[in-house]
C-alpha cells in the first residue's frame, strides 16, 4: 500500500493545497454572492424576487446592455487594430521593431484607469486640450460615456490581440504557405485561405480576453461613465452604496457579470483548444520583401498605435509635475503634487509595495506547481484544477471582493479589514496568469529531463527542485514581476476590500480624483506608472521569454 501511494503523493499534495485554497477563497465566496442573490433582504427566505426585481428594472437592464455593447465594441476594434499590427510586426521589416514591441506590450501592465483619467484630464470638460480648443473657438464633443470607455479599452487592451496573433503569424510553417502558392493561389488568396484561418483561433482567443476584461473592468467606467449605468460599477455601488447597501441586488448583478464573462471564457477555451494546428514552425516565414513605401506605411501605422496608447500615460506623468491650483492647472514645473500626496502619508506607497509583493509570491507559489502538474501529469484531476484555477479570470474583482467580504466578515475566520483578505483577493485574481505562464514555460522544457533525473535516482520532489525549478526560474521571476506590477495597480477588488490603514496607492489616487485634488491624483498615477514600468523594464528580457500571450 505504501508503494502504491508514493508516486502520487507529490502530485496529490500540490493539487490538494491548490484546491483547498481555491475552494475556500474563490469558490466559496462566489457561491456566497450567489446565495446572497437568492435571499430576501432579511436574509431568511429563499426567493427569486431579487432577480425579477433587477431584471425588470430599466436602469439595471441598461447597465447590462451598456456593458455588453462596450465589450463587443472593444472586441471588434481591438481585432481591427491588432491584427494588421501583428501582421506587420511579424512579416514586414518595420522600423525599430525591438523598441516597438517593448512599448506595445506596456499597456497590458499599466493601470487602465490611469489612461481613462488621462483622457479626462486632457479631453474632459475642464481638460487641458478641451480648454485650449475652447479658447480657440473650436467646439469639442464629450469624451464621457460609451465613447470614452471604448476608446480607453481599445488603447489599453489591444495587446491582448496583438501578442497571440503575432506569435501565430510567426509560427506558421513557411512550407504551408508555399504549398498554397505552389498549388496556384496568389499571395492574397494564400493569406485569405491559409494564413488567416490558421491564425484565427489566436485572434479570437485574444479578443475574447479583451471582451472579458472590458466587462469586468471597474476603474475605467468609474472614471468615464458619468451617469451611464455600467454593470461592474453598479454592482459595487449597490454593495457599498452611499445610500443603502443592497447585497441581494448586488449579488444579482454580480451573477450577471459572472455569467457574461464565464460564457466568454468558455468560448475562449474552446477556441484555444482548436489552436492545435498552429504548432511551432519548422521554418518560420521570412520577412516579406516589401517596397519602402509599404514599409513606411506599416511602420507609421504600428508606431502611431503604440504611441496613441502610451500618450495618456505620458500625459499624466507630465501633468503630475505641473502646478495645480485646486483643479486649475498652471504650466509651471513643480513637485507640489508629490509633496502633498506623500505629506499626508507614505503609508499607501508602503502598503502597495507590501501587498503586491506578498500577493505575487503567493500567486506564484500556488500557480507554478499547478502549471507544472497541468503539463506533466495531465489527468481528470488536473483538468478540473485547470478549470478552477482559470475561473478567477471570469470573475470581476468587485464580485470576488464582495464574496470575500460576505464570507469572512463573520464566522470562525474574520478577515475583513485586514491586509490578509486583500492579499488573498489579489492572489486569486493573479492565479490564472501565474498558472498560464508556468504552463507556457513548462511546455518549453522537454518532459523527459525530469524522467532522466528520476531514473538516475532522484525522487520526484527533489527532481522538481533540482531540475525543473532552475530551468523555469527566469520564467518564474518574469511571472512574479508581472503579478507584482498588475497587483500594484489592482483596483476593482481593492475598492471593496481596503480599509483605512490599508489604503493603497490606487485608492489614494481614487480618493484624490473623487475629491478635487487632481494634482495628487496625477502624482499617485505617476508613482503607479513608475512602479509598473521600472520592474518590467528591469526584467524585460526574462518577460519576453516567458510570453505574455499564453493566457
Amino acid at each position, binding site marked *: 500500500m505504501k508503494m502504491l501511494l508514493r508516486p502520487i503523493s507529490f502530485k496529490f499534495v500540490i493539487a490538494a493545497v491548490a484546491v483547498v485554497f481555491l475552494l475556500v477563497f474563490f469558490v466559496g465566496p462566489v457561491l456566497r454572492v450567489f446565495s446572497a442573490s437568492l435571499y430576501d433582504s432579511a436574509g431568511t427566505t429563499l426567493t427569486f424576487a431579487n432577480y425579477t426585481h433587477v431584471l425588470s428594472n430599466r436602469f439595471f437592464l441598461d447597465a447590462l446592455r451598456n456593458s455588453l455593447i462596450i465589450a463587443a465594441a472593444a472586441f471588434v476594434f481591438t481585432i481591427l487594430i491588432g491584427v494588421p499590427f501583428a501582421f506587420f510586426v511579424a512579416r514586414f521589416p518595420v522600423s525599430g521593431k525591438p523598441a516597438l514591441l517593448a512599448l506595445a506590450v506596456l499597456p497590458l501592465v499599466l493601470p487602465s484607469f490611469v489612461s481613462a483619467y488621462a483622457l479626462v484630464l486632457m479631453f474632459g470638460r475642464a481638460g487641458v486640450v478641451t480648454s485650449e480648443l475652447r479658447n480657440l473657438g473650436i467646439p469639442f464633443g464629450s469624451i464621457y460615456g460609451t465613447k470614452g470607455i471604448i476608446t480607453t479599452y481599445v488603447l489599453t487592451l489591444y495587446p491582448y490581440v496583438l501578442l497571440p496573433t503575432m506569435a501565430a503569424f510567426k509560427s506558421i510553417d513557411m512550407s504551408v504557405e508555399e504549398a498554397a502558392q505552389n498549388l496556384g493561389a496568389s499571395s492574397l488568396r494564400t493569406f485569405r485561405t491559409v494564413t488567416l484561418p490558421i491564425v484565427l483561433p489566436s485572434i479570437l482567443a485574444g479578443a475574447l480576453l479583451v471582451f472579458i476584461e472590458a466587462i469586468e473592468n471597474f476603474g475605467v467606467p468609474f472614471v468615464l461613465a458619468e451617469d451611464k449605468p455600467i454593470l461592474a460599477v453598479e454592482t459595487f455601488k449597490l454593495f457599498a452604496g452611499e445610500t443603502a447597501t443592497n447585497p441581494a441586488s448586488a449579488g444579482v448583478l454580480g451573477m450577471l457579470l459572472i455569467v457574461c464573462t464565464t460564457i466568454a471564457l468558455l468560448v475562449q477555451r474552446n477556441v484555444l483548444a482548436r489552436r492545435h494546428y498552429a504548432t511551432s514552425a519548422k521554418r518560420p516565414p521570412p520577412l516579406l520583401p516589401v517596397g519602402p513605401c509599404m514599409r513606411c506605411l506599416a511602420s507609421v501605422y504600428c508606431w502611431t498605435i503604440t504611441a496613441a496608447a502610451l500618450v495618456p500615460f505620458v500625459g499624466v506623468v507630465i501633468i503630475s509635475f505641473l502646478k495645480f491650483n485646486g483643479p486649475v492647472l498652471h504650466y509651471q514645473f513643480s513637485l507640489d503634487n508629490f509633496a502633498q500626496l506623500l505629506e499626508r502619508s507614505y503609508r499607501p506607497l508602503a502598503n502597495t509595495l507590501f501587498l503586491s509583493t506578498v500577493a505575487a509570491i503567493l500567486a506564484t507559489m500556488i500557480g507554478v506547481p499547478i502549471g507544472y502538474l497541468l503539463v506533466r501529469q495531465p489527468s481528470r484531476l488536473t483538468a478540473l484544477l485547470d478549470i478552477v484555477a482559470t475561473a478567477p479570470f471570469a470573475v470581476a474583482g468587485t464580485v470576488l471582493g464582495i464574496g470575500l467580504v460576505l464570507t469572512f466578515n463573520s464566522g470562525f475566520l474574520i478577515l475583513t479589514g485586514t491586509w490578509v483578505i486583500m492579499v488573498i483577493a489579489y492572489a486569486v485574481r493573479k492565479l490564472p496568469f501565474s498558472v498560464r505562464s508556468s504552463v507556457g514555460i513548462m511546455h518549453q522544457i522537454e518532459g523527459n529531463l525530469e524522467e*532522466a533525473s*528520476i531514473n*538516475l535516482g532522484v525522487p520526484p520532489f527533489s527532481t522538481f527542485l533540482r531540475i525543473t525549478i532552475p530551468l523555469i526560474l527566469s520564467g518564474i521571476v518574469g511571472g512574479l514581476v508581472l503579478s507584482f506590477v498588475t497587483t500594484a495597480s489592482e483596483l476593482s477588488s481593492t475598492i471593496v476590500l481596503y480599509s483605512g490603514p490599508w489604503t493603497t496607492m490606487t485608492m489614494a489616487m481614487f480618493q484624490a480624483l473623487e475629491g478635487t485634488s487632481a494634482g495628487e491624483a496625477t502624482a499617485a498615477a505617476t508613482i503607479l506608472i513608475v512602479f509598473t514600468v521600472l520592474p518590467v523594464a528591469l526584467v524585460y528580457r526574462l518577460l519576453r521569454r516567458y510570453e505574455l500571450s499564453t493566457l
Partner: protein
Amino acid sequence: MTSITIEQAARTFGSVRAVDGVSIAIRDAEFFTLLGPSGCGKTTLLRMVAGFCDLDSGRVLFGDKRIDTLPPHQRNTGMVFQNYAIFPHLRVGDNVAYGLKARNVPADARADRIARALKLIQLEGHEGRWPHQLSGGQLQRVAIARAIVIEPNVLLLDEPLSNLDAKLRIEMRGEIRRLQKTLGITVIYVTHDQDEALSMSDRIAVMRSGRVEQIGAPAAIYQTPATPFVAKFVGATNLLEGTVASRSGDVVDVTIAGGNLRVRSTTAQVDQRIEISLRPEAIRLLAPGDAVPAGWATLSGTLNGVEYLGAVTRLYVRLADGAPPLQLTVSVAPADSGEIRVAYDPASAAVWTAGQ
C-alpha cells in the same frame, strides 16, 4: 548484472490496449531488443521497466526481486532517451555526476567514475563543456555515459539513435554493442529499425498491437518468422496467399491467383488457405541453360521492374498468369527484359495457415 522477467504485463490507455499481456524473460547480460512499428507498445513496455508507466496487471522482476511496485528513482535502471534529455543547465561533468550525487558517492570517487565513463564513450576531458556546445552524436554519448556511470542493474535505450544521421547511426550501433559487452550489462533496446535490431541484439521480441509476435535470435526471427507480420516487418519479403491444390510428400502445390507455387509444409492440407513468405534473396535467377538444383521449384514470368540498389539489384517478376509480382535480389541484372526463369528451394519458404 540482472536478469529481467516481465510477467503478463498489461496497460490500457482509454480504449487502447497499449501493452496486452506481455511476458518476456531476459537473461543476464543479454542485449534484448523490442522491435515493432510505432504504437506497438514497445516504448510503453520499456517505460514500465523504468517505472514511468504503471502496470494495470502483471509483474516486473529484476532477478527474483519484484520492482514494478518501486518508484522509478529506486529501480536503479539507466535510461537513455530518444532526445537524450541532457540537462541544459548543467555541464557535461555535472550531467554525468547527477546520478552519482543522488547515490551520495563521495566526490573523489565520483570524479574518478565520471572520468572513466567519459573515457568509455570517447569524450574524455569534456567535463567542463556545456550541452549546447556539443553535437547530436556527442550528446548521445553523454546520455549513455550518464546512464552507465551509476552502474545500473539494466540499461534501457529508447530509440537512442533515431535522431542521428545515417552514418553516425551505424557507427553508434557498434559502439553501443561494444560497450554492452565490455560492461556485461543487461540491455533492453527499443527500436523500429529492423537493421538496428538484427545487427545489435542477442535476442529480439517483435511486437505488434501490444503483444509479442515472436521472440528469438536475429537469425531465427529473419529465417523462421513465426507470423506473416514478423516476416513482413523484418526484412523485405514476398507475402503470398493461396490455396493448397495437392500434396506430394513434404511438398505442397499452392494455387495463387491462378499461378502455382511449390512450398515445403508438413501440416498444410489440401484445399486449405495458406500464407507464404518467400525472401527475395532465396529466389535465384536462372540464366538460359542453367541447371535447376535438385528439389527446387521453378517459375517463369516477365521482368516487370528493375531497382538498382548498389550492391544488389532488385527485380520484379510478373508471373505468367497475373499473380502479384515477385521480388528477388540479384547481384547482376539480366541483360534483356524478356522472359525469365527463377528457381527457389521450397524449404526456404515460411508457411502459415491463412487468417491467423
